[in-house]
């Protein structure tokens, strides 16, 4: 293969018409992905998008890369097999809150713990979009939908808490309207070796419009969102005048008028899982919700482990030889005289 020419956003757009509702947050994510990929320097033919089922999962059709629009909740399983077959590929999983956390919950937690080197982007709109608006595992308690006309009675899952609880090595959050931030998060996810898990707050204009209003509304967002920076104290607010201090294992919002930045909790992407967990618990309205990279630690990936065992086996046993294999157990010979067996 000759050195690839620098690709552009357009190179990543397929010829299929995009079919989301006008105003859907998915558009911004698609655009940002198409803009970010050229920066990664990965040849287009080495990139694969795999999705499940849902509005969000239509994503691969719009990317001019390899792709599979698979079945509901199972994208991580296809991605796992693909990566093991060809670890060189850059694999992205696109999924929704229903796809990944409802029907697909088991595969999500297992790909995370195995640390297979793929990037997962979870479009969280707190609703089942494609099936026209039932509550999802991230819908808030009390949410009235077609399937919960009196309000959902279920406690929602917190996607990032789930990820920390299941040993994820890279965890991040971003917002559909904050495209610059999103691009940066995608870049970081791509750079991470191991499973990257990115939650995107995504607005479904039809069935759950405004679910993330506090995080996207220009008036309020700075007070409700805290941008994480590695090695930096947790500071937020329109005027960057508020911070987070640790009180035992409980976060406290403090005013920088009263408290010095030195007393604030300092973010550490490479810190203990407990820190990422702690951050994932900060929720509206009591706390600002962090965005950015919660956790980024280095661990061996599944493929590395698996492929290195193959090399080891070849090294210690020699490259596989069918003759040897067939004869690897006790054998005996039947000669024309019939009886001359030997072991």
């Amino acid at each position, binding site marked *: 293969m000759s050195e690839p020419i620098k690709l552009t956003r357009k190179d990543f757009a397929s010829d*299929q018409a995009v079919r989301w509702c006008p105003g859907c947050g998915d558009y911004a994510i698609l655009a940002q992905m198409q803009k970010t990929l050229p920066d990664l320097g990965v040849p287009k033919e*080495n990139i694969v998008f795999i999705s499940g089922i849902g509005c969000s999962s239509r994503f691969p059709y719009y990317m001019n890369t390899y792709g599979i629009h698979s079945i509901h909740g199972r994208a991580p399983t296809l991605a796992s*097999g693909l990566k*093991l*077959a060809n670890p060189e*590929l850059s694999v992205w999983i696109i999924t929704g809150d229903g796809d990944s956390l409802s029907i697909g919950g088991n595969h999500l937690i297992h790909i995370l713990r195995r640390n297979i080197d793929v990037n997962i982007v979870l479009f969280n709109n707190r609703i089942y979009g494609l099936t026209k608006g039932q509550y999802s595992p991230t819908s808030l308690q009390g949410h009235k939908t077609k399937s919960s006309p009196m309000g959902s009675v279920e406690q929602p899952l917190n996607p990032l808490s789930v990820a920390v609880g299941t040993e994820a090595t890279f965890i991040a959050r971003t917002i559909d309207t904050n495209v610059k931030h999103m691009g940066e998060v995608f870049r970081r996810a791509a750079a991470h070796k191991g499973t990257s898990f990115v939650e995107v707050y995504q607005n479904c204009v039809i069935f759950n419009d405004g679910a993330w209003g506090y995080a996207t509304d220009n008036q309020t967002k700075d007070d409700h969102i805290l941008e994480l920076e590695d090695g930096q104290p947790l500071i937020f607010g329109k005027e960057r005048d508020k911070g987070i201090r640790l009180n035992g294992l409980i976060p406290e919002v403090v005013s920088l008028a009263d408290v010095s930045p030195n007393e604030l909790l300092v973010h550490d992407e490479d810190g203990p899982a407990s820190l990422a967990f702690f951050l994932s618990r900060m929720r509206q309205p009591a706390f600002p919700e962090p965005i950015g990279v919660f956790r980024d630690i280095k661990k061996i990936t599944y493929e590395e482990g698996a492929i290195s065992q*193959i090399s080891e086996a070849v090294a210690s046993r020699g490259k596989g030889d069918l003759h040897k294999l067939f004869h690897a157990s006790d054998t005996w010979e039947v000669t024309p005289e019939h009886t001359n067996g030997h072991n």
Partner: protein
Amino acid sequence: MPESKHHVEYQDIESVIIRFAGDSGDGMQLTGLQFSNTSAVFGNDISTLPDFPAEIRAPAGTLAGVSGFQVNFSSEEILTPGDAPQVLVAMNPAALKANLIDLEPGGKIIVNTDAFNNANLKKADYDSNPLEDGSLDGYDVYELPITTLNRNALADLEDLSTRDKDRCKNFFSLGLTFWIYDRPLETTLSYIDKKFAKNPLLVDANKRALIAGYDVGHNTEAFQTRFHIQPAHLKTGVYRRITGNEAIALGMITAAQKAGKPLFYGSYPITPASEILHNLANQKQFDVRTFQAEDEIAAMGSTIGAAFGGAMAATGTSGPGVALKSEAINLALVLELPMVIVNVQRGGPSTGLPTKTEQSDLLQAMFGRNGESPVPVIAPATPGDCFYMAIEAFRMAVRAMTPVFVLSDGYLGNSAEPWLIPDPDDIPPIVVKHPSAPSNGAEPFEPYKRNSETFARPWAIPGTPGLEHRLGGLGKQPDTGNVSYVPFDHEQMVKDRAEKIAKLADYVPPQTLIGPEEGDLLVVSWGSTLGAVRSAVKRVQGQAYAVSHAHIRYLNPFPKNLDSIVRRFDRILVPEMNLGQLIFLLRGRYGLETPFIPYPKVQGRPFTIREVTEKILSLVE
């Protein structure tokens, strides 16, 4: 060897089936294996069938803890290990109770009387001692205090605990059977040397036990006859024992090597298929990539992903696992990617009888998915055939770009037969063509453009510049594969997929027939019943009845000539380990009014030759 101390007659016989049974702790698997190795080396055809308890380690002496191993050895070609045993070695009451039901009427029973104490009788749910209450009348019973005899033989090994001595008693009984069937001791003696090399005391003890058992034959008046089974007229060559599960693993590795590709195997452990995973996990030097998935759905999904990535991809499971995979199998089917799905069938439905055999997933393989979802289905007939059918499945998968079902079963999976080891160089390559990067200005790539002969679509794999494309489970436009809800696009894709599988009939070898080309009675079978059915048909043919046998290895599509074969007979007998699934398929496919005579056996165990013979005779006599 010392000469017999009493008068002994020699009798030449054709074959014997002997079953060793005892507590799981009694080493019966080892005993059986030694017996079969010795017989194999001696030149007999052999065939073996282990019978594990359902519990990992049930309390000693209970019915649940009985473990058995059956060896069939013969001077003729053996087609099935699964027939009714003629000899039963029972190390305790539970072993007797659990196995007596299978023994041929008048068969030999060798029992260890030392184990028939009250405690053991109770554990085996015996109300009275079967050795005393007449319940063994009609059998040829040899009562021996094996524990005592064995202890005596090892009496002077003072450094060995009684417990350790008792653990040798399986070699004692092995020695006895060696005497009766006139087998040489060398193979086992050298096995003992190797096995216990680190512990000379145990070498000594086990050898003594073996020889003591052998000598008991000489010394005890009880044994008046020895039997001699001539070496068989087997094809010349080098043989090994192989179970179906081992053979599937070997076949898959061979297929991948013949395609010049890594082998991917995604699986979730399940009885009786797990050994395929174990075998493959142990062959990483062949670039075998095993993936122990979190469940069967993930196993199937990962297999699809690996196939998309260009590997030779396979998954294996048993019936309940196939149920779970079925949604993803349908995805594989519409993505039109090549892969192999092995079902080592077990007793169903639901959890059923995990350690027992059955053939009741045929219709599931055919129809167990939503929509019109045709898949090729093939079924190996013997453990060794599993090797060839695994390769065959990959050939068909690659040829037609489709998942292919291989229906093995618990009996094939676990039983072993001698396998004439093929020369790997004689196995033709599997030629895989991936389209390569298009030249500039080429037509846009059409991932669903079908090959006019096979109807297969091209297998373009990620990493190939210029062939980027998206696959998906939604309705599609022909050629481009783009999402389409257009009514005729859908209909064409449905029909093309059906046609593609039907076209595989061009590849399927013609159905063979043993016996007259037409006539009154045709016996039709599939899968692991080959041995019992073929043997039965041969017996009956030997009695000059005109009965034919067709054993079907290709179940979808059927061989082209099967249609005309089944129409040439007046009646068709179908022995199946289910309630009549092949009959349903034959009727449904061919619209046959021919009276089918179902012969279902749904007991978790294979047919015996006798059963099938009697059934046939009841029809033709």
